[in-house]
């Protein structure tokens, strides 16, 4: 397996001429204090070195931070004159780290164990499941699958508080216990106001779909986590194993409506690669929204394009819908050159994540105080700097009736 990874790594990284163009767009360069090991060129160059070292022996330096800090925004490839995708290099390197077991991160290992055992990265409390109270799902062949993204985000806040309170050393000690006894994360409390906000958005999504006459079923608290972090942390062997379990649950349906870009991309483009008989119609909920229900107000929105709607699998409907509801401006960094919200680094590099999100928030705020996005990670990450709303909440406010 590692041979295949190495030849892919070689193919991608030898193209790098080390010109540094990508550093000018990589969100983790300036925000990491100009750390050359946490920038796109650094990732391409260190990736090439990783290939060379592994080809002839062992990895000599702990290079995990270089690749785990990559936000996977794939903006670098847009400006690279030889078409190198340092995001892809980081994915391959993380996969190599997890396969060789050298320089794995303890936090990541704990999360992976939790997912494999409890089918979730953390134990989710009941209050995060109150959004469907009073709603009767329809027994039909369409499932509204949340992928637990909205529900999980409020827990990361307290994880960081905990890290701060305990100090790095004892936090890592706790992590290594959590790795052995994953259930310990049951005691991790979510941030209350974030739970409420997530519940409100989830309620709005149900409501919008109902108003658009879309029938759907719900798995409620039995919903499995889609395995996003296994994939994003490069634990592809575990991911392959894990998604068999998820697919067995989902395959009872014909169509799956997803509500966040990460789960949508994972199900639509990654699952089919690993599940030979994959046969699900994966839909994004915004595609089901009846645009005729919406009215256009004179509000001025600044829209943040989530990275996962850009790049190879471009998804444009979020933009179309927001443009149907008001006047929309985009910051200079938009479309396939968007600027990440910093969210993907939240668990492993909280201060880097905050710096990236602060920078992005500033760019958006310069255009309008009315900032909108359509991804729970972006929403959560950017909200640390000030107000931001989810597109579902804007839709709910712009229904004609």
């Amino acid at each position, binding site marked *: 397996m590692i041979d295949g990874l190495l030849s892919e790594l070689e193919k991608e990284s030898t193209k790098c001429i080390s010109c540094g163009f990508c550093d*000018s767009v990589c969100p983790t360069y300036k925000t990491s204090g*100009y*750390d*050359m*090991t946490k920038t796109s060129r650094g990732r391409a160059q260190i990736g090439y070195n990783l290939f060379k070292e592994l080809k002839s022996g062992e990895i000599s330096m702990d290079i995990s931070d270089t690749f785990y800090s990559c936000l996977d925004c794939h903006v670098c490839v847009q400006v690279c004159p030889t078409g190198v995708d340092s995001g892809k290099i980081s994915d391959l390197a993380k996969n190599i780290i997890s396969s060789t077991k050298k320089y794995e991160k303890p936090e990541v290992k704990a999360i992976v164990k939790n997912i494999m055992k409890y089918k979730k990265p953390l134990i989710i409390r009941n209050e995060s499941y109150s959004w469907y109270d009073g709603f009767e799902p329809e027994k039909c062949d369409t499932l509204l699958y949340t992928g637990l993204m909205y529900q999980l985000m409020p827990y990361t806040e307290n994880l960081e508080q905990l890290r701060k309170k305990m100090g790095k050393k004892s936090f890592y000690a706790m992590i290594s216990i959590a790795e052995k006894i994953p259930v310990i994360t049951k005691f991790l409390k979510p941030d209350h106001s974030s739970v409420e906000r997530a519940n409100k958005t989830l309620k709005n999504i149900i409501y919008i779909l109902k108003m658009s006459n879309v029938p759907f079923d719900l798995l409620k608290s039995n919903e499995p986590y889609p395995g996003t972090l296994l994939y994003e942390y490069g634990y592809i062997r575990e991911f392959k194993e894990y998604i068999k379990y998820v697919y067995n649950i989902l395959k009872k349906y014909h169509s799956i409506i997803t509500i966040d870009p990460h789960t949508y991309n994972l199900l639509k483009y990654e699952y089919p690669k690993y599940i030979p008989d994959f046969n699900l119609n994966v839909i994004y909920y915004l595609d089901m929204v009846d645009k005729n229900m919406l009215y256009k107000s004179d509000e001025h929105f600044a829209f943040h394009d989530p990275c996962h709607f850009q790049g190879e699998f471009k998804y444009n409907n979020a933009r179309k819908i927001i443009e149907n509801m008001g006047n929309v401006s985009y910051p200079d960094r938009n479309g396939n050159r968007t600027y990440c919200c910093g969210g993907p680094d939240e668990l492993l590099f909280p201060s880097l994540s905050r710096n990236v999100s602060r920078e992005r928030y500033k760019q958006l705020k310069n255009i309008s105080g009315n900032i909108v996005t359509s991804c729970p990670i972006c929403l959560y990450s950017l909200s640390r700097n000030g107000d931001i709303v989810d597109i579902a909440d804007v839709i709910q406010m712009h229904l004609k009736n």
Partner: protein
Amino acid sequence: MDKKILSEFIDAAGNGNVLYDEKDLFPYKRGSIDRIEEMPEIAIKIFDEKSISKIMKIAHKYRIPVIARGGGSSPTGAVVPEKKGIVLDMRPLNAISVNIRDGYVEAYAGATLEEVNNESRKYGFFFPPDPSSVSISTVGGAINENSGGMRCARYGVVKDWILKIDVVLSSGDETSFGESIYKNRGGFNFVDLICGSEGTLCIVKKAYLKIMPLPEKITRIAGFFNTIEESANAIFSIRKNGLNPLILEYADYYGIKAANEIKKWNYPEAHGGMVLVDTDYGENYLSKIQNVLEENNAFKIFIPGNEEEYNNIFEIRRIAFAAPGLLFKGFIDGDIVVPLSKLTDAIEGINQVRIKNNVYIATCGHAGDGNLHPQIGGNPDNISEWENVKKSVREINDLAVRLGGSISGEHGIGKIKEDDFIRQLKYKNQIKTLEFMKSVKKIFDPENILNPGNFALGGNYD
């Protein structure tokens, strides 16, 4: 490094800004394109302008080599560290302030030219020299390489836009050269001397850059040609007809092909290449350019219809520069410049080298000022293949010199072109230049600690 010296550097630069871990030093090993690399002993991130002088004093005291690094995009080895040396990472020192009333921008050395332009644009101004590496080329790097770019046929190169520089000398003393005024005859022109000195004379801390109002509307046109002769004639005719475009650029078949491959586009892979022209004199002017391109048999004329097309056609030229990077493990950057009347001979001559040596050469360039970049690809691990690449580089450099030109228009000499540079000086009977360079170096840097082993200055002054 000796612990005591290291702690002196840490005191001078601040804890956390001095890097000595192999992992942290790794990215400082090389510049771009050339695969020459060397691990420095330490790298220091410069956030505080005052730290530079303190660092230089220590380096001077212990005679430790210092290599200033901006964007690290130099393709000649000029930014490759010395084994026992220090890298000064200037990129974090990047504050910019625009002074519209006096017509200049005050920018610290680590600011990129793109950042300078972004700030200036807010006031309706721009900094004309535009290496295609603007997004990474820093003020300090662009000055020390005297960089050029696409608009330079009209506006000149970086040195023509520098009013004053604040510098730190190798001893750690600080001074400045020039004045932040538009004319100044006070003394020798030291600003011009520092421009293109490749980090060998002093550390540039801050510069005062002349700016000018943004052109009103830029229109763009590209012509695709069947033969190299036709495209070269078109370039020549534009000039001959007294037309003065904003940019006049060239990308050959290989460059267009690479861009198509990377971006999944299908622009014509014209065997005679593409001539790209920007003008800022309105539609009438554009049609004059179009006529010249057509008169010289362009088989396709492309005028962008929207912003995306406008950007994409430019992107072809930009990617063409790095075309061999897509196909080969290594390549050597060519940067010849010839008299405008010899452009056809140069392009033809490059083609002859390609055929004779059976090498891959992708050529693009700033045709408007006779500057071509023949980029030669190959595998550095394959000795005979790489020797053939080096031989081809030498033949092309010699060709440029024979045609009355030079081996470098804008990228400089660095480490990889030292021999060819010396041969050029000998051929032109200008070896005195090298002697004077060495004398000047000795005045500025008697201990030879600033980027030694670069720019044919060697280490031996006797």
